């Protein structure tokens, strides 16, 4: 038996989320008395693969095949299933990110496995396998029991801390069969959000809402993000009105984010907005209205006009950073 972790690489590099997944998988393996192994699709250099050993993975399978250049849920599922079968994996872990969400459900059906999605903690019991997941858009959590022999889990981002666990990691090439017709939905083009810190990767997010009155006022928000090395996000009306691009929209119908720090400027804090951000570790609200619902969810608040507070705050952040 083994715990298998799918570690996605981005042009040959791993992200922090992969180390979270390894740390999580290693902890389950420890409890089970088995090993944690990883699989990655695409070419990754040796140093980066070795890095996975730092967090305790015993082995990583590298699948390099030009046919797999573009993402296909069918092809990637087939590859991971073959690695899982060959290694008798009984717990298979993905990130709750676009690729994990596309692959995990297909794999679960193929392996007659139960799937626990958007999980936020280590299983509270291995038998029966019981694990806590996000429910009702962050308004609650639920314990789900997985009854099948093989269990598939998708782990919510930023919900498990990275733990170092240095291990000698073996690197092995794996050749997988790719089913015919895996690419019948034909990839035409990949559009990357270049140069921008994506909202789901950012550890700090500076977010603004309709309280900013218009797109021309985002300069001070961009400045704050720049000072803090933060990403930018916004409420739904802001992206609906075209003030900001859609990939910045967070909330129930936008992206779900869980940064360490979420700074909300001129956002009222409607439940549908909070549903996407309530996983943040610390939230700050800046709003003219002392009764804005966001203050009930926030850790720190300033009742004040963004046009007055934000420039002052930017100066204070700058000073703080300059003084180290």
């Amino acid at each position, binding site marked *: 038996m083994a715990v298998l972790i799918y570690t996605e690489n*981005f042009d040959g590099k791993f992200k922090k989320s992969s180390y979270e997944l390894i740390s999580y998988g290693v902890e389950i393996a420890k409890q089970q008395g088995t090993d944690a192994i990883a699989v990655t699709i695409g070419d990754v250099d040796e140093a980066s693969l070795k890095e996975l050993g730092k967090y305790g993975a015993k082995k990583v399978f590298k699948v390099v095949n030009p046919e797999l250049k573009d993402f296909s*849920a*069918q092809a990637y*599922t087939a590859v991971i299933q073959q690695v899982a079968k060959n290694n008798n994996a009984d717990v298979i872990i993905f990130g709750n*990110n*676009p*690729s994990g*969400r*596309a*692959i995990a*459900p*297909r*794999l679960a*059906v193929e392996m007659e496995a*139960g*799937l626990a*999605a*958007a999980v936020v903690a280590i299983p509270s019991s291995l038998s029966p396998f019981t694990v806590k*997941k996000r*429910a*009702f*858009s*962050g*308004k*609650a959590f*639920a*314990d*789900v*029991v997985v*009854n*099948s022999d093989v269990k598939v889990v998708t782990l919510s981002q930023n919900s498990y801390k990275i733990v170092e666990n240095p291990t000698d990691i073996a690197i092995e090439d794996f050749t997988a069969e790719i089913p015919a017709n895996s690419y*019948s*939905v034909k990839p*035409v083009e990949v*559009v990357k*959000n270049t140069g921008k810190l994506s909202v789901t990767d950012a550890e*700090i997010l500076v977010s603004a809402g309709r309280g900013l009155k218009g797109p021309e006022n985002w300069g001070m928000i961009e400045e704050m993000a720049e000072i*803090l090395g933060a990403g930018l996000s916004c409420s739904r009306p802001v992206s609906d009105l075209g003030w900001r691009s*859609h990939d910045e929209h967070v909330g*129930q*119908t936008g992206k779900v984010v869980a940064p360490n*720090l979420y700074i909300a400027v001129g956002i009222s804090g409607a*439940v*549908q907005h909070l*549903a996407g951000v*309530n996983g943040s570790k*610390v939230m700050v609200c800046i709003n003219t209205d002392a009764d804005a619902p966001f*203050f009930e*969810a926030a*850790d*720190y*608040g*300033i*009742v*004040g006009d963004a046009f007055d*507070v934000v420039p*002052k*705050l930017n100066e*204070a952040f700058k000073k*703080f950073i300059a003084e180290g």
Partner: protein
Amino acid sequence: MKALICIGHVPDTTSKVKFTDGDTKFDTTDIQYIVGPYEELALTRLLDIKDAGTDMHITAINVGLSETEPTLRKALAMGADEAIRVNAEPTDAAFVAKQIAEVFKNGEYDVIVTGKESIDYNGGQVEGMVGAFLDIPSVSGASLFEVEGDKIKLEQEIDGGKQVLEASFPFVVSAGKGFAKEPRIPNMRGIMMARRKKLEVVEPVEQNKLTEVVKHYLPEAKPACKMVSPDNVEELVRLLHEEAKVI
């Protein structure tokens, strides 16, 4: 195009979440049920395509007991042509997906459309599972669905960007943000017509129950928000550094 659109029956987004029976069950008292917000976008897009002149027949499907019929009627009022209810409690995603796959096999559909995730258990599982049961391609979190001749142009969210795809029938796609702009609101005529549209009830096929929700928790109550004066923003910076340790 014959589309099967999967309609979830979910608590209104503003619902206060409570549990009963020793926190094993969702408390449905005073809860308003709605068509899932992603499914609203999905249906809206199909209706827009139909209105633009493409031949389109839309069947709304829900796996649920009779209490979900008003939600299916709402989908009919928005403009779906007919509805199917699979008469069973939706125990887990695999069960739901199996039922949808079965209906697809028994009809002559070209495409299955679901929402990106249901807003109760936030699984985002049904689309991929239907794809695997039927051995057809699945595309998740699509932000575009456009007819181009006999092909469909799709965009799928991938980490750090998006992938543009060209799909031929059959396939299953889940609708994310951007699939349609604003969800349609049923008008009076739609509501009247919905009463006369066909809503067929079929019995479920078997599927092992692989997962089970056994307990719910509410998030721990947050301590009250610490207020900082707008004239002392340095204090906020200090708190974020020394107390919260996030900068």
